[in-house]
């Protein structure tokens, strides 16, 4: 069968849903921006959303697909922001086009961050779980500490940058699209399967002949690259680039986006990054003056309630009864009754639904093929590596 035939056979809406969401947002807001229909604060909010999405999706690759906990994502962003914007500032003296300068500085920032990603990836080969988490956190803090003491970067004054203006979000969304194309094709290729195999059982994956070293480093480099690009976007949005922004608290905030969106769920990451950024924006701008102190209180409460509601084992049965998912299931049941053969084929083609397997599949279940329901493969609350 030809390649296109394969693509046609394999076509499902969920594979392009992310492109549709981001593309639609890009076109819609670009048009609105050009006719001048959105206020300035909204277009800057869109910029914030765009770099949050880049950060959360790229972190999801490490946490959700490779299964390694990383708390140093803001460190990559920091390296990208400082170095990319520093060279951007130099370049802008030689190149007139702002867009070209931005693109080149994004590439520089991304590549520098990718180099740092490689450096962090090396300990990841030897360390596991929480030990790796503290190393990534430590690494992020080291990068931040060095950046704040480099004289070229303005030390404690921060690196003054030229801001790009209201149209920055268009570039941001374009970067998201490019990243999604690369990422989704990666995940659905054999390389993606290798990465998830490492997550599910590293030793088994190694035994199957997967080059674990290569893939781990590759994932760290890939994810760091886009964190660096996001850093440059940030630097073109806010001046000065100041070390204090990139503390481990920000890494944790990105992690929150990933976890709320669902591990290994790219659409989820996009949506949760958007919602959290909007929530933060609303809380910061509405709760001004004396009310500012309760802002974090509200944020913390929302965070806890959502996480407990989404994850608490005790609430599982309650939720399954009264959720859209239950409704969806009932509809599927009817559909299945109507055309059982087609449905069975669907399941078979779908057996590698990488994007929505929560965390872990045990080897037995993979070997028994034709995974029928999701229920059997829910995680038991263990780390992938602890097996």
């Amino acid at each position: 069968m030809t390649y296109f035939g394969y693509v046609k056979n394999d076509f499902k809406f969920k594979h392009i849903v992310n492109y549709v969401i981001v593309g639609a947002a890009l076109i819609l807001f670009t048009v609105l921006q050009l006719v001048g229909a959105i206020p300035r604060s909204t277009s800057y909010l869109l910029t914030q959303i765009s770099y949050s999405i880049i950060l959360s999706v790229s972190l999801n690759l490490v946490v959700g697909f490779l299964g390694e906990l990383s708390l140093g994502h803001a460190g990559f962003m920091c390296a990208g922001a400082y170095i990319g914007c520093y060279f951007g500032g130099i370049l802008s003296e030689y190149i007139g086009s702002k867009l070209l300068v931005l693109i080149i500085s994004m590439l520089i920032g991304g590549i520098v961050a990718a180099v740092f990603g490689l450096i962090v990836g090396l300990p990841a080969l030897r360390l596991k779980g929480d030990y790796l988490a503290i190393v990534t956190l430590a690494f992020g803090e080291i990068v931040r500490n060095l950046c704040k003491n480099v004289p070229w970067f303005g030390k404690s004054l921060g690196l003054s940058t030229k801001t790009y203006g209201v149209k920055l979000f268009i570039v941001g969304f374009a970067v998201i699209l490019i990243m999604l194309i690369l990422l989704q094709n990666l995940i659905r290729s054999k390389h993606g399967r290798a990465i998830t195999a490492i997550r599910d059982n590293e030793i088994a994956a190694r035994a199957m002949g997967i080059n674990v070293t290569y893939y781990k480093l590759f994932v760290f480099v890939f994810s760091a690259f886009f964190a660096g690009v996001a850093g440059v976007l940030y630097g073109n949005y806010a001046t000065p680039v100041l070390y204090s922004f990139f503390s481990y608290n920000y890494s944790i905030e990105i992690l929150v986006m990933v976890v709320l969106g669902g591990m290994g769920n790219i659409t989820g990451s996009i949506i949760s990054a958007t919602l959290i950024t909007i929530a933060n924006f609303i809380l910061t701008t509405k709760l001004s003056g004396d009310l500012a102190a309760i802002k974090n209180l509200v944020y913390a409460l929302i965070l806890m309630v959502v996480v407990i509601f989404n994850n608490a084992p005790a609430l599982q049965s309650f939720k399954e009864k009264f959720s859209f998912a239950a409704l969806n299931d009932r509809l599927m049941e009817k559909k299945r009754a109507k055309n059982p053969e087609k449905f069975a084929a669907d399941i078979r083609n779908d057996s590698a639904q990488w994007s929505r397997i929560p965390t872990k599949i045990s080897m037995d279940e993979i070997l028994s093929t034709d995974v029928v329901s999701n229920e059997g493969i829910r995680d038991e609350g263990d780390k992938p590596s602890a097996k």
Partner: protein
Amino acid sequence: MSTIIDGLSLGSIYALIALGYTMVYGIAKMLNFAHGDIIMIGAYALFTMMNLTGSPIVAIITAIVVCTLLGIVIEKVAYKPLRGASPLAVLITAIGVSYLLQSVAQIIYGAKARPVTLFSLGTVKFGEVTLSLSALVTLIVCAVIMVGLTLFVKCTKIGRAMVAVSEDKAAAQLMGVNVNNIISITFAIGSCLAAFAAVFYLLQISATSPTLGSMPGIKAFTAAVIGGIGSIPGAMIGGILLGLIEKLCQSVTALSPYTTAIEFGILILILLVKPTGLLGRKRREKV
């Protein structure tokens, strides 16, 4: 010489916090990011009681009670519903708790740093070196607590149940250990240690603010990892090592701005050589 003594006294605070961290991590297998903030609440409890009564003893007892109760409440409300869920979910509620405690403290006490003087122990002179007694006391208390905890874990029934839970929850349950209760008790002990940490933190650094807990919390986490998470003597060694490194860096003016980078760099080096920390046990992986 006096740098080393300063390092020891700072390290003993880190060690004390790291003991609480490592207890909770070793048994409940969760990174309790809110641990530093429990210390902060303990410090505010001390501040309030010192202003109300002026008696350090009353203040310390109150702080211990407040922290322990707070630890139990947090565990019941925020962590217990998530038992059996993914560890990352618990990590995030812990962060939520940390934000929550910080903003509550800011709402009640304001953002300004508040001075607290529990009691001053004065100094002793050994020849050239001036030694502050509070540093000495912190070190001794830290060592006593470490020995006490080790004995508690090794010799009491609850302690051994804790070890069992940390080794294998399911097997422990089969052997008749009430896993839920054991984890709750661990939290209570960890929070009680946080109150001690608050007392000794304030003895040396006599001011409290809503963000007091975050940096010592992260430093103690680092210390716990250096020592090997879950290992009680490891936490002590890690904390003291970290304090020494920090003070040695700061005493050299050229290195002082890079203190954080050096500390974390040493952490990474240690972990590269010994992936489970200095005293952490290696676990053979089974397929």
